């Protein structure tokens, strides 16, 4: 029996592979994101088909030396988060985001915990856009693209509560004299920097996060955005 290690993992995406297997991209606490073949995960006698689902905390024991690992056994760590309705679509958006921006074998334990917390919130039926923004911010921070909300990127001075600022991706906030579209008040930036995400800050965060994610997505938009377009909510 080859040597195997057990990882705590969530499936980000899985597609059919051979007759009864799945080729899955998993996000693990220990090793970050990587690809794994889960044998017997579809049908067959293994009784594993209900297990390998999105948003379910799994214990995956993997072996193999190459880039593509094989899962010898998978177990549910505990019951999966029951995302329903709109939250399900949001969960799929988050998965696509992680799938697109995470590099392979990049250890991100903090982000893993944040992901778990987000799923828990979504699973309980709560939803506030601000939670998604918070997750996106910690994703950016984990990847080394953290955003500083309390310092003017141009002058290095602290943000002035009465000033107006605009945002430049990969640089930060710069003071503007107004007249520019999409400028934000210093007061909001300061409240975000101190960890207070009021409802009023949401449009600001959305703008900032989208602008920062764009270069990471390589110019190709996220497909899940189509799920939210063209209808209310």
């Amino acid at each position, binding site marked *: 029996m080859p040597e195997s290690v057990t990882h705590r993992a969530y499936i980000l995406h899985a*597609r059919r592979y051979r007759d009864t297997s799945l080729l899955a991209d998993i996000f693990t606490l220990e090793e970050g994101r990587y690809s794994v073949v889960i044998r017997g995960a579809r049908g067959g006698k293994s009784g594993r088909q209900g297990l390998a689902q999105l948003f379910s905390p799994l214990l995956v024991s993997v072996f193999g030396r190459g880039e593509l690992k094989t899962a010898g056994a998978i177990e549910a760590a505990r019951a999966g988060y029951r995302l*329903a309705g709109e939250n399900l679509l949001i969960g799929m958006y988050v998965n696509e985001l992680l799938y697109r921006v995470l590099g392979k074998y990049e250890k991100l334990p903090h982000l893993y915990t944040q992901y778990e917390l987000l799923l828990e919130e979504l699973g309980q039926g709560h939803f506030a856009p601000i939670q998604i923004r918070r997750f996106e911010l910690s994703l950016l921070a984990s990847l080394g693209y953290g955003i500083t909300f309390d310092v003017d990127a141009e002058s290095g001075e602290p943000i002035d509560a009465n000033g107006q600022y605009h945002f430049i991706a990969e640089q930060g906030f710069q003071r503007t004299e107004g007249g520019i579209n999409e400028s934000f008040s210093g007061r909001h930036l300061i409240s975000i920097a101190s960890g207070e995400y009021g409802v009023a800050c949401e449009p600001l965060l959305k703008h900032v996060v989208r602008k920062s994610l764009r270069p990471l997505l390589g110019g190709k938009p996220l497909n899940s955005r189509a799920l939210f377009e063209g209808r209310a909510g």
Partner: protein
Amino acid sequence: MSDSSLITQLTDAFRCLPGVGPKTAQRMVLHLLERDRDGGRRLASKLALAMEAVGNCESCRNLTEATVCEICCDPRREARTLCVVETPADVLAIEHSGSYRGYYFVLMGCLSPIDGIGPAEIGIDALLKRCQKSIEEVILAVGSTIEGEATAHYISEVVKPLGVQVSRIAHGIPLGGELEFVDGGTLSHALQGRKIL
């Protein structure tokens, strides 16, 4: 046998079938060449014909060589219900059960943003158009996977504003199933979806 010989090429071609590896493909090729040349010719001609002629039904998107498939053309069917399924195989499965007499709509997959399957790919526009023709109830018969759930939710959100009733097939304990062998997820679904007697 050289790599470019017809026999090798044919063996490779057979491997595009699901569940067919190199050994099985070789056995199929040798069988046709040694014992069943007629069968081989018939297979080749039908395959060529079907690959060219079969397309999607204009009304339900199921596979057919006609513009509108047989089921959609059948006037004896119940015109008020539309059953939404993921694949043509699902249509066959429901037809075999003999318990449904309405029309179908085949999504040809389910929502999966990472694979690039969005609302446009599963034919939401065609579905909405179909719903405007005398349909009173849309029955969602999609798989009990996360992607299936998401697809069901999305469709119900876009179809309901048309004033069409949307229902989802039940899921839970299989017929003849014993509780102790049913996995926890299925069991909790079954409990949630219980019926008052």
